[in-house]
């Protein structure tokens, strides 16, 4: 590889920001202006989880917070709450990343499912406590389940197309040390 680890980290951080912008772009396309009965998965959250578990150094918490807040702003959600919960979820995944590195994919999927469910429940609880109008329950459940189901696909994309893989023993980390 011609690039140093430091430039690789920064280029991957920029790549993640770009990925988020692409997802938001497709969300914002004026294709569907009638109310829908079904919802797609929350790809933003799924990608954030997948990247946090694989390479925590590519998704620093400040960048995650800023991108989630941008998504909150653009997608007409109450700003801050979802961003905060998603950030906490990703951080807890990052902390567990080292333990999950050696277990199979099933363990990872399970822990992501738990985190996604916790974020959704926490979000609804937060809205309920502050007396904000709740989004329809059916759609929320649908979106959560879709996010969980699509997670393996997201991981495959992350792993295969974007080349974000789990650190293996012997890889160099950002400061040039071995992991």
């Amino acid at each position, binding site marked *: 590889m011609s690039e140093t680890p430091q430039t690789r980290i920064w280029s991957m951080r920029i790549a993640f920001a770009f990925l988020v912008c692409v997802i938001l772009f497709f969300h914002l396309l004026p294709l569907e202006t009638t109310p829908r009965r079904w919802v797609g998965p929350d790809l933003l959250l799924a990608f954030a989880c997948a990247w946090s578990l694989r390479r925590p150094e590519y998704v620093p918490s400040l960048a995650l917070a800023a991108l989630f807040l941008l998504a909150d702003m*653009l997608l007409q959600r109450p700003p801050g709450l979802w961003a905060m919960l998603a950030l906490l979820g990703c951080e807890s995944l990052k902390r567990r990343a080292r333990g999950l590195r050696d277990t199979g994919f099933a363990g990872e999927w399970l822990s992501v499912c738990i985190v996604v469910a916790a974020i959704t429940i926490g979000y609804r609880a937060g809205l309920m406590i502050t007396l904000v109008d709740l989004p329809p329950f059916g759609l929320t459940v649908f979106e959560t389940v879709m996010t969980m189901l699509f997670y393996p696909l997201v991981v495959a994309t992350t792993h295969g197309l974007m080349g974000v893989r789990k650190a293996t023993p012997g890889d160099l980390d950002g400061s040039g040390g*071995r992991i």
Partner: protein
Amino acid sequence: MAKDRTSSNEYTGPVRRLLLSVIVLCLLATFLVWRIDSPRVERFRAQITDKFVPSLDWAMAPVTGAINLLKDFQSYQRLAEQNSELRSELRRMQAWKEAALQLEQENARLLDLNNVRLDPRLTYITGVVLADSGSPFRQSVLLNVGARDGVVDGWATMDGIGVVGRISGVGENTARVILLTDASSRIPAVIQPSGQRVIVSGDNSAAPPIEFLEDSDLVRPGHRVVSSGDGGVFPAGLLIGQVALDPAGKLRVRLAADYQRLEFLRVLRHHGTDPVSDTARIIGPQLPPQPVVAQEEVSQ
């Protein structure tokens, strides 16, 4: 090298945790500020959208066009049956067109006879739909007209036929339209011909339900729903749609505007209805203000 890293981890660990808690507190504070002072944060949101979305416009238009083309391609398969459907519809429409022309002439004659002045201030600006809400939980679209064009919160937007929604959130170059189907949309309306006043309140479904209906016996499916202008923020007399009965027996509005394809929207300039400001007075002959003094002056 490995030793270096572990020692640096010992320092970065607590710093990282501190940074994380600061970020989390900031996000929580944002949410609480939004909850307490929503208008200011919403204005901020409109500004962010105003910066972000128009810069993507060059890419959005072709991608939207391409995807719509693909969607249309599916409907080409049913071209033959669609054609025959359209032909029979056209025959029915021609009868209606004849009736409409006659009614238009009659209406013009009557208006002329009555010396009616139509409100000349109801002019409009047409905007192009830039983006939708991006989330299945909210129903709104973003237009490419904004404060620069004099758009003000609360104005009505229509497509060619019916009301689409109202402006809520104006940036410099963009304005957000909350659609009638959004869960936070409430529009005062009147049902013709029975003249009952109702509220059309969106609930994230394609046909918003009718609420606060006094006497449901007077309303039949097919009756027209038009905006009533109650409250003074929304112009009166705009077509919203037709009454329809859903399987659960609830009255809903089948919207007249074509929500499948929202491309160009009219924003109606509305400067509010003039309030009646003076109090009631006795109607009688016009007298001079102080008749006694006036008489004295005359006599001198």
